[in-house]
């Protein structure tokens, strides 16, 4: 830097001469424009805006000028540096954009490559199916009740008006534990859970009881010695068969879609009187019995699917379970979860549910 000299004419300082400043600016702008990538631009930045660049050096000379000359020289230099910085920023943006674009192209991968490092898990459709059913009832304010599978004979039979001579109590139908005079069975239905609920709670009672049950059936495409049921029980003042129908219609529509309702046929169950079989409008042909000109396969052309049993809780059952039959009435229903899923999902063979083949289960994912 030149020393302070108040007599100097500013034009005498070479780096601050307008033509010098313009030349430095133009050189800088040219270098910036010539930079073809970010590295070259970085070099241009160092060369033309760095501490040793002509414009930076010129800027330092301003201090040496007499005060009256500083303003003009400062403006000149400032404008030049401003133009350079602007050009740098603009070029930087262009080159960055170019760089990013090129990088994104170069980084292209084959997105169709497999991604299945860890195999997928799944919950069993019987589990998620039972949850779906539970959720439908919970949404109506019901609760889910459960009980043990090895059950007292009295709870599985006597309390439900299945007397000592009821055919279901034979060894042909029921698994008994040893010794038989311990009076313990593998529950043949989830109804003992209903009995337990009535024995331990005060009405109003609105519960569904999903669970595993056992009968000494042959194991084939439509029967299994181990299967799953869901039963429902409502005990309240003024309960009638109409409430049973309303509840089952709602259940059917929730499970199979709007418009799928139920029909009752007179039937017989010891724990209900009157009793009914529940049929479901076939949700495939929607009750027509015919689909595409051929008999519907799901309902075998009947338009209805047998779904389960139901009825008004027999006052004898209320008595055994300590419910005041003068004050309360109730309804109960029950159906097979396995069977319900079989026709909901078009399963051909019940045994698929119990084979544990992961190809079967994963097809259902983790929800129904």
């Amino acid at each position, binding site marked *: 830097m030149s020393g302070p000299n108040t007599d100097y004419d500013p034009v005498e300082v070479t780096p601050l001469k307008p033509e010098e400043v313009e030349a430095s600016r133009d050189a800088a702008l040219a270098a910036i424009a010539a930079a073809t990538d970010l590295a070259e631009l970085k070099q241009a930045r160092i060369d033309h805006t760095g501490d040793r660049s002509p414009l930076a050096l010129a800027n330092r000379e301003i201090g040496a000028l007499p005060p009256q000359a500083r303003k003009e020289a400062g403006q000149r230099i400032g404008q030049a540096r401003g133009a350079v910085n602007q050009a740098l920023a603009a070029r930087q943006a262009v080159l960055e954009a170019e760089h990013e674009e090129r990088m994104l192209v170069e980084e292209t991968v084959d997105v169709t490559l497999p991604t299945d490092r860890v195999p997928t*898990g799944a919950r069993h459709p019987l589990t998620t199916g039972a949850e779906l059913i539970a959720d439908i009832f919970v949404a109506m304010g019901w609760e889910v009740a459960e009980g043990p599978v090895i059950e007292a004979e009295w709870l599985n039979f006597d309390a439900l008006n299945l007397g000592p001579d009821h055919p279901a109590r034979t060894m042909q139908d029921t*698994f008994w534990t040893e010794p038989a005079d311990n009076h313990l069975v593998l529950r043949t239905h989830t109804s003992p859970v209903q009995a337990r609920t009535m024995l331990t709670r005060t009405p109003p009672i609105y519960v569904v009881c999903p669970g595993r049950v056992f009968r000494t059936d042959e194991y084939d495409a439509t029967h299994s010695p181990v299967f799953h049921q869901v039963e429902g029980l409502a005990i309240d003042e003024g309960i009638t068969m109409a409430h049973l129908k*309303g509840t089952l219609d709602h259940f059917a529509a929730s499970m199979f879609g709007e418009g799928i309702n139920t029909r009752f046929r007179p039937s017989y169950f010891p724990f209900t009187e009157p009793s009914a079989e529940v049929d479901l409008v076939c949700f495939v042909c929607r009750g027509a019995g015919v689909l595409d000109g051929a008999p519907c396969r799901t309902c075998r052309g009947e338009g209805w699917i047998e779904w389960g049993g139901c009825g008004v809780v027999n006052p004898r059952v209320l008595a055994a379970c300590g419910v005041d039959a003068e004050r309360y009435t109730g309804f109960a229903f029950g159906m097979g979860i396995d069977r319900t899923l079989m026709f909901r999902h078009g399963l051909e063979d019940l045994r698929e549910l*119990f084979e544990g083949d992961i190809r079967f289960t994963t097809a259902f994912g983790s929800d129904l």
Partner: protein
Amino acid sequence: MKAPVSWIREYVDLPDDATTEDLTARLTALGLKLEAIEKPGDQITGPLVVGKVLTMEPEPQKNGKTINWCTVDVGAANGTGEPQGIVCGAHNFKPGDLVVVILPGGILPGNFEISARKTYGHLSAGMICSARELGLGEDHDGIIVLPADAGVPGDSAFPVLGLDDEVIEFEINPDRAYALSLRGVAREAALAYDAPYRDPAERSVPEPNGAGYPVEIDDPVGCPVFVARKVTGFDPAAPSPDWMVRRLTQAGMRPISLAVDVTNYVMLEIGRPIHGYDADKLSGPIRVRRAAAGERLTTLDGTDRVLSPEDLVVTDDSGIIGLGGVMGGETTEMSATTTAVLVEAAHWDATSMFRTGRRHRLTSEAGKRNERGVDPVVTQAAADRVVELLTTYGGGTADPGVTVVGIPPQQAPIEMAYDLPERVTGMPIDAATTVANLEAVGCELDKHDTTVVATPPPWRPDLNDPFDLVEEVARIVGYDQVPSVLPREAAGRGLTREQRLRRRVGRTLAGAGCVEVISFPFVGDAAFDALGLPADDVLRTTVRLANPLSSEEPSYTTTLLPGLLKAAARNIGRGASGVSLFETGTVAFPVDRGPAPIYGVDWRPTDAELAKLLEAIPEQPLHLAVVLSGERERAGWWGDGREAGWSDAIGIVRRLGTELGVDIEVVSAARAPWHPGRCARVLVDGAELGHAGELHPKVCQAFGLPPRSAAVEIDLDLLMRRARDVTPGPEFSTYPLAKEDVALVVDASVTTAAVESALREGAGDLLESIRLFDLFTGEQVGEGRKSLAFALRFRAADRTLTEEETAAARDAAVALAAERTGAVQR
């Protein structure tokens, strides 16, 4: 129960245009569920007509056969009225016989189209049919020769052969035993159409007299009524009439002989099972009593049976001659030479019938009806009907003696409020409807102001209390009239905590790549042996089943592993390269707290009684088991895959602990079926949750699983009980993190958990987390030593830690680890 429509129509005047479909729909709505409709002629298209053979000329053929060239009068059925020329290969007929002819254009079963064709030098215009060709049985020895009065030439042969008679098969519920007869089915049909009904059991019968076969009843509860009638001079060779044979066949019973067929026919007609004795083989009075212990009887089916004191038996001077109401004995059985028949129509106690049938594993058409309850009043009518049919078709004489011992039991009257049907069903049912419907099912009514006292008809032993009557009233009103109304909204509390946690456990495991399976919970020694359980292992103490599906698996399982390992092996066997499965299910452990009591049902057991009952029920904890077998992570373009191993199994338990907010403690253990050096016992708050780790090589081998398969089994109930209930809001600092890594060399036998817990304790409150990031063994650390590298992360709640503070905490951690475990910092 199979009922031919023509037989139903015999007792009820159904509208002529009532189709079988309409009839069955209405009966189903009343409670007689349609099982199937059989239409015997639905595979035949006419013209199928009665023909009269005019001429037949045998013509021997070169192939050795002789055919008959016939002319047959088919009336106007062929459009010309001229005799029809037909070639027939059968020889069991003669000119003048009535036969069944299918004319050209007709179709026989099997889509066999009939046309006029040239054969054996003639134009054969149609076919004379055999029973088999019409789908009426297997008889193909010759063509059908109709009775002379079957019809006139040109008549449709469908009604003649019963081909147009549809047969309805019903599923009869146990409470509707009366519908196990045409009498009962027709009664329901009459109800369905409000049509006139003729009761086949309503007939005038001869008065009882002292001249009949002597009968004594020692047990009037077991056998309230015994009617005996006798037919003598009966022709044992007389055939059953065609109509009877046809109806028995339609109803699914095999025709045997006139005497047997008549008893079966009357049972189908009236519902009352009948027994026939060869009267010449009886000696002395008939007596009905309970058997004495140890007495024996060889029943009609040839089985020698030891009788129980509960069995009702029929005896004569020779001893026991029948198991009353269930099956007769061999010694007095009717045979091909029987000419005198003693007809028994007795009413039996239904419960005794059920027990005897069950005890002796005897099911019969008679037993099925007797054990469900038969009308006790129709015994005389049934016996009289048998006598009528036997004498009509067997040519015998009815003995004038009529024995009737005992009195039919009475039905108890039931009082019901008129509005009960409405209150129970929610249908608008007024008193008039209630009265009308109860009368329609045969009740005798005594009407009061607000209640009606109904005495059920004798054929309805199932009607015992007011709700039974409600069902009768309601089914006639029609279940389709029940309105659909949702009950009031219940104030439920949603899923229980345990139910929510169970879903969470399932989703966590599915998220960890495990697939849920559901297996049968039965187990046997073979599975315990395959698991390598020692003889005294607690898991071998099971709840045994008295009647298991298979003697190989006689117990309710104590472990979910056998089912799960088999499922894993099945998947591997089907080509899976790796499989991760889980199951949640109850297992059972016996308790020895005495039998579960059987209480009465007229009132609720006391709380103490209930507690005693619940106490007798085996422990049934909910278990969770996992098996990880073969490839756990796949190889791929990203690099190598990874086989499942012990750490995956323990990792799953830890993951569940994190999910449920439970601190899981892992200690090493040796427990079958796990590898003794690679088995973890997992605990929560010092209580054993279960085990996890690699399976013993022998177990993998026994179940056919890849080596190093790993498994978990824990008590899920326990885990869920310890699950964090309400998560307190976490507090965490946003001051900078200070990192310190330390590598410690310890003896190989020192566990990571021990070192980690010493470091954690020594580091104090400033420690935010600690994690092992490297494990190293080798020469540098010396034989029998290992190096454990931990990442320690420090942070204070209220300030930025200084380097000195962090270093001090680290040093304190290392110092405590050194003191506790002999660790030396590298």
